[in-house]
């Protein structure tokens, strides 16, 4: 099972420091909730789409759209319910299908949702998890918490593989007759052995992890050194400044 969130590509987003990018993501996600003009929201979204295209290519850039496609469809379908009053644009007899306010609202929500989706996704695509971890630590995440994050990623593939084998092991213990035509409750009951075995398997590894952590020096009091470092090209302060400037520019241009 792949745990990689990083997507290889090129462009400026890959060159920016993880800490500066995190600030940018935060500010942009907050910005889209401000009263910006319709144009502004769509411009923000389209810029993120273009950046995704530039960074990872067209097909990859469309991926987030696919993952939220159904939400967008539901949003469109629900327009008759929102903003019942107001200027009616389409109606069937007495029933107001679409009002201008509803369309306006739909447009705002869609642009905002799309923008947020792409902003967050781009961050994760262009920043390796190890760098995100270091960035969070720089912002104040404790060493213990960062350790939990790293260890979790170490264990995900291990537990995923073991889970599949556990499922197989149980499938082999069942007979022909049992595998056919089971009710939903029976299926859930049959999940209990597999889930229990998976949990016992995982729990058994915990003392070993703790042993290894302490054996490898976790808990030593002199300060730890660090193999990995974050380096900001042009200086971190400059990049952080840029991360503040960009949302500010959008704000100035499109605030109503």
């Amino acid at each position: 099972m792949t745990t990689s969130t990083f997507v290889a590509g090129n462009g400026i987003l890959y060159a920016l420091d993880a800490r500066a990018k995190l600030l940018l993501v935060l500010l942009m996600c907050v910005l889209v909730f401000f009263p910006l003009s319709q144009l502004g929201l769509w411009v923000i979204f389209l810029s993120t789409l273009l950046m995704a295209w530039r960074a990872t290519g067209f097909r990859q850039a469309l991926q987030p759209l696919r993952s939220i496609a159904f939400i967008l469809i539901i949003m469109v379908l629900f327009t008759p319910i929102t903003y019942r009053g107001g200027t009616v644009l389409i109606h069937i007899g007495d029933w107001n299908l679409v009002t201008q306010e509803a369309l306006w609202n739909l447009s705002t929500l869609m642009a905002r949702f799309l923008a947020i989706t792409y902003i967050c996704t781009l961050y994760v695509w262009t920043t390796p998890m190890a760098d995100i971890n270091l960035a969070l630590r720089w912002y104040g995440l404790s060493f213990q918490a960062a350790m939990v994050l790293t260890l979790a990623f170490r264990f995900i593939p291990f537990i995923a593989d073991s889970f599949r084998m556990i499922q197989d092991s149980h499938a082999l213990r069942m007979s022909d007759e049992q595998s056919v035509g089971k009710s939903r409750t029976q299926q859930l009951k049959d999940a209990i052995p597999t889930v229990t075995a998976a949990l016992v398997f995982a729990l058994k590894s915990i003392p070993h992890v703790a042993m290894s952590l302490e054996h490898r020096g976790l808990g030593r009091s002199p300060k730890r050194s660090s193999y990995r470092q974050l380096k900001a090209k042009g200086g971190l302060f400059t990049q952080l400044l840029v991360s503040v400037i960009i949302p500010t520019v959008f704000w100035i241009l499109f605030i109503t």
Partner: protein
Amino acid sequence: MEQKGPANMSALRIALMAVLTAVVVVFTLIVRVPTPIKGYISLCDVIITFSAFLFGPWIAAIAGGLGTGIADLIGGYAQWAPLSFVIHGVQGLLIALIARAGVKQGVPGDAKLPMMILGGVVGMIVMAGGYYLAGGVLYGFEPALVEIPLNLIQSGVGLVLGIAVSKAVLKAYPPVRALAL
């Protein structure tokens, strides 16, 4: 002379949180049924409930929040990650606080069934309610209503299986008691 594990040991705590988080991630991503809106319903709530019953509020909050957050990142739903972190984190926290109310710290398996059920129900409300609110803010409160039944089913299944699995694990693997901190 029998040596007991030191309480509140940093390394054991880290290991416990990390492994349970990984289990939540696996259960969120692998054991899942695709649905239109949120993407999938999964058995992650079984593990969150289990962690809450056996290990207490902070472990369950981290396992639930971090686990579902990471799963969102890996699964291609990065925009949901911080929201899942908060929602499932609070879910784990509250289930544990209610289910283990009155239980001594560090004694798994002593949670009483009625409190476990109450905690689980509160967890269901928090989870479904949390996603409703988050969805409402993100893309509108009316569309967000659609998710509620599925989320209730997911967390409901999580509660029922969580109770069954907690009992089963305590019986099958007695050393789990030493992991409680």
